[in-house]
């Protein structure tokens, strides 16, 4: 009896506290990175001596960052453009067709998520070297090579998110279209695809972010003159430890957040993820 009257109050307080703690845990690193980017001292300490924008200016001056940023954008955009349609097609085949060995195929497609990035990167590097020898052309440190590697990241995400969308799709809407006289291809174009849009948009966004932020898989595949932003940041870190990286990271965080907000305008993310 007592538990029924006193517990809800206590429970609510505990619930709120744990939610607050979870948010704190997730946001603390982000807030720290953003804060540090404005500190004047070179070696991070607290409290800040003064606030400054010099690290942003320094980052702007570093050629590698600007070039890495452009490369990352290019790679992420292309890998998304290739991976999402492929992943969507694969998800359709997995959910709808009667092919055999669906389980195995699904595991294969999601595989890249399970293999540690460094291992996959190393394997790819060795494969690229072999391929370069056979094809007699550069693959490592080329845009094509990087895009091909990143498609491995974008396909699993697309397969998973589009599959989830497909599983929740009301097939009777497709049947209704067929009943009204639409041939299979028209049904797909006019009904199935529009109904999958939230899943596809989410897949594109996740793919883009995965590719844009990837470090481990990319590490061995870049070369002089063609480096992605995360790799450029790591190289900078090898020689210097000033808040320039925080400044770059802040820009990156803002970019990803903007992308999420933009996506959310078209599809409610809470409905997909």
């Amino acid at each position, binding site marked *: 009896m007592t538990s029924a009257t006193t517990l809800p109050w206590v429970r609510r307080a505990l619930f709120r506290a744990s939610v607050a703690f979870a948010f704190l845990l997730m946001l603390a690193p982000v807030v720290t990175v953003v804060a540090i980017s404005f500190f004047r001292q070179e070696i991070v300490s607290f409290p800040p001596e003064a606030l400054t924008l010099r690290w942003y200016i320094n980052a702007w001056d570093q050629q590698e960052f600007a070039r890495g940023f452009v490369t990352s954008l290019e790679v992420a955009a292309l890998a998304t453009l290739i991976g999402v349609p492929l992943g969507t097609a694969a998800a359709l085949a997995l959910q709808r067709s009667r092919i055999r060995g669906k389980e195995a195929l699904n595991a294969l497609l999601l595989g890249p998520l399970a293999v540690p990035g460094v291992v996959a990167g190393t394997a790819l590097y060795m494969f690229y070297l072999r391929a370069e020898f056979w094809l007699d052309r550069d693959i490592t440190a080329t845009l094509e090579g990087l895009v091909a590697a990143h498609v491995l990241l974008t396909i699993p995400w697309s397969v998973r998110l589009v599959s989830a969308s497909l599983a929740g799709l*009301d097939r*009777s*809407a497709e*049947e*209704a279209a*067929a009943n*009204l006289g639409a041939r299979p291809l028209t049904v797909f174009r006019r009904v199935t695809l529009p*109904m999958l849009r939230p899943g596809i948009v989410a897949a594109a966004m996740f793919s883009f972010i995965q590719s844009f932020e990837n470090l481990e898989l990319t590490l061995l595949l870049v070369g002089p003159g063609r480096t992605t932003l995360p790799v450029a940041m790591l190289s900078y870190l090898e020689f210097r430890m000033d808040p320039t990286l925080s400044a770059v990271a802040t820009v990156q965080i803002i970019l990803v957040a903007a992308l999420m907000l933009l996506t959310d305008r078209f599809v409610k993310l809470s409905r997909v993820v």
Partner: protein
Amino acid sequence: MGDLVLQALTKRYGGTTAVEGVDLEVRQGEMVALLGPSGCGKTTTLRMVAGFITPSAGSVRIAGQDVTRKPPYARDTGMVFQSYALFPHMTVAQNVAFGLEMRRVGRAERESRVMEALRLVRLDHLAERLPGQLSGGQQQRVALARALVVNPAVFLLDEPLSNLDAKLRGEVRMEIRSLQQRLGLTTLIVTHDQEEALTMADRLVVMERGRVRQVGTAEELYERPRDPFVAGFVGRCNLIEGVPEGAAGFRAKGGALLPCAPEAPPAGTGAVLALRPERIALSAAPSTASLGEGTARLEAVTYLGAQTEYVVDYAGTPLVVIRATPPVGDPLRRLAPGDAVALSWDPAAARMLPAQ
């Protein structure tokens, strides 16, 4: 518009048979209901008519044309789905226009026919809304308009009311029936709700385990059920197992001798006597004459407002009796479990059916 003829329609999945040899004719402008418990094959039958399921054997003819092997888009049917199946990304008007677009109807004609169809279901003021912004009843009416706007030869309804609440169900039921009659639509409706079937359809098809048990009007099925399943499924019925004893009556398993029409005792020894609860008269003062032995005892009384339901033990055979609730002050109102009661019925009302 046209008629619909099913001949020996059969669907097997591996070893199991979902639908077995269904023969049915839905005449021009007629509404026929497929009625049965879940898993009886009624939905499978409807989906074979629409073309979503390919029959294992038999044929489907729409307006004289054999469409058994034709894909859904090449059949002239308009279907309304249980889940409404509206296109969530299109407005109400676009949903309704879809079928006309597929038929390459020109824009001007399309627009006027869409508005006409929406007026028919009284939704013309919501043409620009998305389905998600409508109530369940409104969505259902959009689905109706979308199926009707193309003037299909056959109108198909798959449990169209099961997602609506009770009050709305009555309204939409009347709306569908009046549309169907006004437009003279050849209609096949699937339902598991006998009240729905009885009130809407011209004829009913009772199905069980993939087979048609009986086809007939509501009255035919209710008054002259062919077997105990139909008797029990359409309306409530006392189904008493026992053995016919000719002119003496029917000897129930429990030992009671029940009066019944002497005509045509079914072949074989076992039979089932079907007796509708409302055909049994009940009185408080046991008049032993009508009963022979006066051995009926009241077991339970349930007050249902307009009606009262009594469970009576008639010499070891439980019988359900439903009577209009007697006025206050009537001796019947004071009956309590354990009381002795007298039962009587017209022997012609007790129908002898073959045992299942």
